[in-house]
């Protein structure tokens, strides 16, 4: 039932030298599956631990279920926390681990057993009740950790890279399992990960973090279609970045001059001024590709430098006349694949592109993960 509100929260380490969480505000709705993503070291774990009450914040306020919890110890927050390393108690077997919460909270033995059984069956591990953590596989430990958090009556599930230690196949299976469990039980979940594909696949909404700050919050669709930030455009999905200057700002579109004297029409960008230095962002699948160097509207000519067949799509690296290389992906079945060294013309619809002011510290710096 809980929603979570984070208001202007900051946290520093090392006598203020490391700003792990920098004035973050965030609202997570009731019963929402929410993901926090960002490169490693950006402060995701710290923010999650602040919400759990495992570390004190420097300033700000956190509300769980509309109750200010700044001074509430973790054991009273009715949360479940799944640690990256699972933290299963090594001296207890699976059953004792899972019923730890109910026992500690002095619930009736009957209720404790029922909960233990129920949650273990939910994660399909009831048969392994007697096993000790060191006898389990990574995926099993992960499921026990989730069951343990649920059995303790968590309404808010905090997951810190819960799938990070698992191999790709199990990871893909388990992520849907966790989401289903959360949805079936009507819980709220905050899921920390550095894997954008994982977040996209299971989240209702996602917050993208960098250097302790939240850059953008939105549904996976939102973030993909309307990135508000160069970093987000790069981190969520894949993007091509072309440098240029504004030539003209119109009602519906903006004309941009790229390097090598190429001029294209891009999305509307009324906030931009004539001659301003900008970055034009186009997704790899937003390009269409024709054979030969053509004089078409909104076309950029180039040469294919590399082709890789990726199943559903074929991926091309195209060296443009602007002396920049872009990635283009095309559906493999619908189109005849083109060979390396083929001369091509790329076109795109203006509204499928994005324009950002050129970052102060340079494009590379802006896109960097650290």
């Amino acid at each position, binding site marked *: 039932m809980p929603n979570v509100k984070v208001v202007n929260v900051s946290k520093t380490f090392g006598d203020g030298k490391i700003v792990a969480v920098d004035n973050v505000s965030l609202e997570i709705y009731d019963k929402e599956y929410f993901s926090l993503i960002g490169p490693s070291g950006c402060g995701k774990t710290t923010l999650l631990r602040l919400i759990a009450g495992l570390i004190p914040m420097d300033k700000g306020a956190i509300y769980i279920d509309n109750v200010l919890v700044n001074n509430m110890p973790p*054991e009273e927050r009715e949360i479940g926390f799944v640690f990256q390393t699972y933290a299963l108690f090594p*001296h207890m077997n699976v059953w*004792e681990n899972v019923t*730890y919460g109910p026992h*500690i*909270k002095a619930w009736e033995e009957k209720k404790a057993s029922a909960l233990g059984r129920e949650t273990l069956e939910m994660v399909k591990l009831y048969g392994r009740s007697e096993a000790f953590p060191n006898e389990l596989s990574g995926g099993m430990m992960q499921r026990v950790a989730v069951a343990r958090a649920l059995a303790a009556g968590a309404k808010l599930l905090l997951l810190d890279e819960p799938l990070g230690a698992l191999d790709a196949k199990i990871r893909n299976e388990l992520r849907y399992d966790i989401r289903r469990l959360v949805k079936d039980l009507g819980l709220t979940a905050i899921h920390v990960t550095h894997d954008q594909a994982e977040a996209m696949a299971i989240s209702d909404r996602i917050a993208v973090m960098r250097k302790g700050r939240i850059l953008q919050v939105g549904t996976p669709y939102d973030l993909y279609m309307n990135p508000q930030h160069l970093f987000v455009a790069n981190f969520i999905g894949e993007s091509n970045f072309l440098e240029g200057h504004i030539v003209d700002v119109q009602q519906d579109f903006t004309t941009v001059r790229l390097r090598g004297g190429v001029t294209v029409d891009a999305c509307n960008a009324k906030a931009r001024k004539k001659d301003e230095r900008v970055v034009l962002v186009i997704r790899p699948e937003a390009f269409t590709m024709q054979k030969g160097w053509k004089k078409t509207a909104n076309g950029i000519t180039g040469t294919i430098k590399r082709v890789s067949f990726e199943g559903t799509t074929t991926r091309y690296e195209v060296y443009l006349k602007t002396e920049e290389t872009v990635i283009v992906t095309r559906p493999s079945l619908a189109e005849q694949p083109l060979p390396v060294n083929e001369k091509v013309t790329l076109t795109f619809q203006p509204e499928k592109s994005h324009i950002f002011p050129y970052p102060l510290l340079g494009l590379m710096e802006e896109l960097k993960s650290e």
Partner: protein
Amino acid sequence: MGKQAKIMKSLDKISSNSILRSGLYLATIFFFVAIILIPTVLGIALKWNLLSTVFENPDLLSRAMNAVGASFAIAAFVSVIDLIAGVPTAWFIARGKSRWLNVLDTLCDLPFIIPTVALGYSLLLFWDSPLGVAGLFGGSLLSPGWLLIILLHFVFSFPVVVRVMVGALLDYKYVYEEAARTLGAHPVTADRTVTFPILKPSLVGSFVLAFARSLSETGATIVVAGTFETGVVFISNMNTPENQAIYGQGPLVFASLLLLLIAVIIFGVIQLFGTRLKIPIKHISRSFEKKASGKKVVRLRDGATLFTLFFLILLPALFVAVTALPAIQDGTLGNALSGSVDQTGKYNWGAYWQSLLVSYFVGFAATIVNVVAGLPMAILIARNRMGKQLSSVLDALVNIPIIVPSVALGVSLRLFWANFPFVPELLLIIMAHISITYPYFVKSLAAAIMRVDPEVENAARILGARPFGVFRTIILPMVKYSFFAGAIIMFTRSISETGATVAVISPTSSLLTVPVLLVQWIRPLLPSGTTTAVGVSSAVGLGCGFLILFSILILLVLRLMMRGKGRY
């Protein structure tokens, strides 16, 4: 590649050879049996035929039994108190963030570094002379007797618990406690149900070490015992020339063997059931544990911890240094710094400085030898490398050098090494210290290694690391604090060792360690016969003061060296 790296690489390579590895473990066991075990027990074990003198004398028999019984009662009581006071202290040190905790941590080692006779003398001054706290109560607060023995044993066994537990807590993965908290456990509940059970090997280990130390300590106990007899007091009473003439060595051997046997049985039982013992998870009382976790209670606990540390342990232990104050005026300081002999001829400072050097040299030498010899033993015990039975047996046997009363130990060592007259005296002292300090290191390290998941080792092996490489790069970093703790305990124990050292050197020897020299200085000041007052001498105060000061400096430097690689 540096020279050191090359050596490590070749050691890694050699360690893959399973024959060599078995050879190393066998050599470790041989070293233990030949250098540690046999010399420590041979002396008393060979004389079991003398026991009849005790059995023929019912009065003597019951006196010996009572004394040994008192020893066990005191040891049990003191070790429990040690845990109650030592664990919160270790907690305070390991969990705190302040840099000053390094100093506090070092202070905790002090009672272990002060020669036991000086420690006993210091406690007498504090509790039983007008100079100390007793001054507030008309000159004597506590006269020698069992209560003072308990206080004394508390003072010198407390550092063992703190050292082992600080190491264990720093190696402990805090995330378990956090997990418990998020599952609804109050801090105290989390400690009871998760942290303590995981740290159980170290808790049991430090209990056993404290217990054994209390059983066998002789030098200081005699000083504060008065007419009360514990096992070791009985032994040293029987060791006087007059009693030797009447009873021979029978009573000494009897009491030593009795102490040894009962202790081995007790430790065997602890070994068997201690590790199986489960602390129930069931709630004690949720609201009680919540209150006990509250800020106020925690502050109260920290306050009580620090109070105990300062007023029951550090102040009494270091009190002897107070008597050094007059040294500035009465010329003692001048004598000391110039290394000359004072007017009375009682205090030879040249000999003092030499003994200090000998002590530190012996301490370092014994520590280094035992680190090398003890490492494989710790692995052997922790990982059942040569079978579980052998590991359990070795684990129990390793305690013996701590249990054997130091007078008996000295007699034993002397008897053993007398067979090798060509061994130089300095080496003899080092050998004795190796025997005595070995268990502290092995115990502390083995407990830590037991906590490391064997799977981690397997993972490293699969990644291509050789056995020694696994140890060097995986296990050692995970147990480095316990490793360091073990080394510190050995070093400090060696610096303070008195009884056995006295026994192995010849009476006319000029090669003294600093405790042996201080014994000679302190003896005349102790109450004896008709004088019940404790004597005071600025030279003794200064001698103890210098030792304490230099030892603090050495320990601090060692800590700072460790700090580069983490806390300490």
